[in-house]
């Protein structure tokens, strides 16, 4: 186990720069998730960490050692690929023992370690099977087994769950997290799925267009997104955004689309009439007499909660209620955002305005 330092790393393919100076400190034993939309550079960064891509500039160190020019096999890392990359002509046991075999470990040693890994992952009955004979979830576990037999300094996961069906994905998510709690190996995990990021990470790094937008614990990012991109990316259903202006006439308010008045706890250090984006998460709406008028468009009950799509000042928003209101499309209701949980962003830069 060891820490990983990514310092001002850049990557260009030809003249095209895809990573514009990324700095991510990763502590020993931490579970870090790199998340972002496709094309944001998260997989490239992971592959640079693995040594599969060259580093154009900046440094990556594992432990105390700068690994820019260290061969992948000398970096003492293990990687789980999106398509698992299991060797089709080897049994599960051979797949898992391959790295040890290449290191000239004795067959007793290989057997012992493969067996132990198989026990951890409940793969013991499958050791003699070939990858073709396994289900998606089993292949996924073999890919993890191949990583853990080596007992590496760092685990790298490249979108490992995206080939699984929804139910299995949730189960494997828990399994990977449990494995990390048990082994406590430093882990870097790449995904485009913000729910995976939220549920698994000790620290989330949100990337977008080759830069780091924000990093922090899942709840920090959820409660206090630095900018509109992070606010919109983290959370499902996504945060509602309403464009308008800040008004300070004794009481701070926000004037939304078509003059809708929305509450603000305090006005940021900004003058009256500042153009801004008002962000409110779906679960932070309540039904109150002094709320903004909204016309219901669609009601989607999921059982545990109900998602209500409604129009405020002509703009569609979504609100989530735990209570089972009897709403019908076309009904007029009054939605009130909780002023203490409202986010305000600069309209031009997307930066957070309120504290």
């Amino acid at each position, binding site marked *: 186990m060891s820490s990983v330092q990514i310092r001002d790393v850049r990557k260009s393919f030809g003249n095209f720069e895809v990573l514009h100076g990324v700095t991510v400190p990763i502590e020993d034993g931490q579970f870090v998730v790199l998340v972002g939309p496709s094309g944001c550079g998260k997989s490239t960064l992971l592959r640079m960490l*693995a*040594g*599969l891509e060259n580093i154009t500039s900046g440094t990556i160190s594992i432990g105390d050692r700068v690994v820019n020019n260290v061969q*992948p*096999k000398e970096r003492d*890392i*293990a*990687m789980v*690929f*999106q*398509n698992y*990359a299991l*060797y*089709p*002509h*080897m049994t599960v046991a051979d797949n898992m023992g*391959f*790295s040890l075999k*290449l*290191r000239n470990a004795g067959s007793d040693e290989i057997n012992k370690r493969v067996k132990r890994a198989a026990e951890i992952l409940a793969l013991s009955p499958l050791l003699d*099977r*070939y*990858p*073709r*004979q*396994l*289900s*998606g979830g089993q292949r996924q576990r073999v890919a993890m087994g*191949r990583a853990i037999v*080596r007992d590496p300094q760092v685990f790298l996961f490249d979108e490992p769950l995206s080939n699984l069906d929804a139910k299995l994905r949730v189960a494997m998510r828990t399994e990977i997290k449990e494995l990390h709690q048990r082994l406590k190996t430093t882990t870097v995990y790449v995904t485009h799925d913000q729910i995976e990021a939220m549920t698994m990470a000790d620290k989330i790094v949100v990337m977008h267009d080759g830069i780091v937008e924000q990093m922090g614990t899942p709840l920090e990012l959820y409660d206090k997104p630095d900018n509109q991109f992070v606010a919109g990316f983290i959370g499902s259903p996504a945060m509602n955004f309403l464009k308008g202006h800040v008004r300070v006439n004794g009481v701070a308010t926000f004037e939304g689309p078509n003059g809708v008045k929305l509450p603000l706890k305090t006005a940021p250090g900004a003058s009256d009439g500042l153009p801004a984006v008002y962000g409110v998460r779906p679960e932070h709406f309540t039904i109150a007499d002094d709320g903004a008028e909204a016309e219901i468009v669609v009601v989607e009950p999921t059982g545990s909660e109900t998602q209500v799509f409604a129009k405020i000042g002509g703009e569609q928003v979504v609100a989530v209620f735990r209570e089972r209101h009897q709403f019908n499309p076309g009904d007029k209701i009054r939605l009130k955002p909780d002023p203490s949980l409202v986010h305000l962003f600069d309209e031009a830069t997307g930066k957070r305005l309120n504290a």
Partner: protein
Amino acid sequence: MADVAIPRAKPQMIEANAWTQLKHNRNWLGFWFMVPAMAFLIFFLAYPLGLGIWLSFTDTRIGRVGQFVGTENYEWLWDDSIFWLSVFNTLLYTFVASAIKFAIGLYLALLLNENMPFKAMLRAMVLIPFIVPTVLSALAFWWIFDSQFSIISWSLKHLGLINQNINFLGDTTWARICVIFANIWRGVPFVAITLLAGLQTVSPSLYEAATLDGATRWQNFRFITYPLLTPIIAVVMTFSVLFTFTDFQLIWAMTRGGPVNATHLMATLSYQRAIIAGQLGEGAAISSAMIPFLLAAIMVSWFGLQRRKWQQGENND
């Protein structure tokens, strides 16, 4: 309400006769769809093969219907040293040429699978020997190896390495080397391009995984590329061996089996005896004698290299 009696059409139960039944039988229809292919195979493959084997048991000559003579032709061949020389030549030709074609073909395939400039052009260039008509390339080799005008002899003489022309196609050892060389030149593209196609089916992430597992380039080849390529190698080499074993054009255009029968293959000897000398029965016997060898080659690939265990089993994708 009074029930209204609706006159119901009585289902007409026609007693289907045999012809009608047959018309609606899917297997019958399927049979007719297969007839063209079957006819093609019977007239152009099974019939000539059967006729050839039948001829080998007769004393047919050109212009005269033969009599059934049993295994007499084969008994003659058994004591014919030229026949046995042609068997030796064919085996030598096939083994040496196929082995070298495999080695060079695999090397080229691995090379062309790398990222390099002008990749598409190089791949197309490799195919050139394959698209030149065999007789044309044989004639070119004939000139290259000519006893008087050989460009190789000329070059070596000008370099001062030799004093007189090498008699490429006149010396038994040189003649064998020359025809084998020409066959290799012609056969490498097929092996190389087919193996290249096989290499491209190997997922790059397997190499990445192996590299992270600590494999060197050689170990990548030994433990990943080679095992995954074996099914393709089996198919390619079976075809390559069959083509080489039955080669005729190249030899006939370059040496006609000479000198002193040193490059006579079974196919060329068969042609010489059957068509040139008119002994159709004997020629057919030589041709038929190739069948056991060819069957053996097919058996090797069938049993030794059929679908591996790892390719079988449920596919849960």
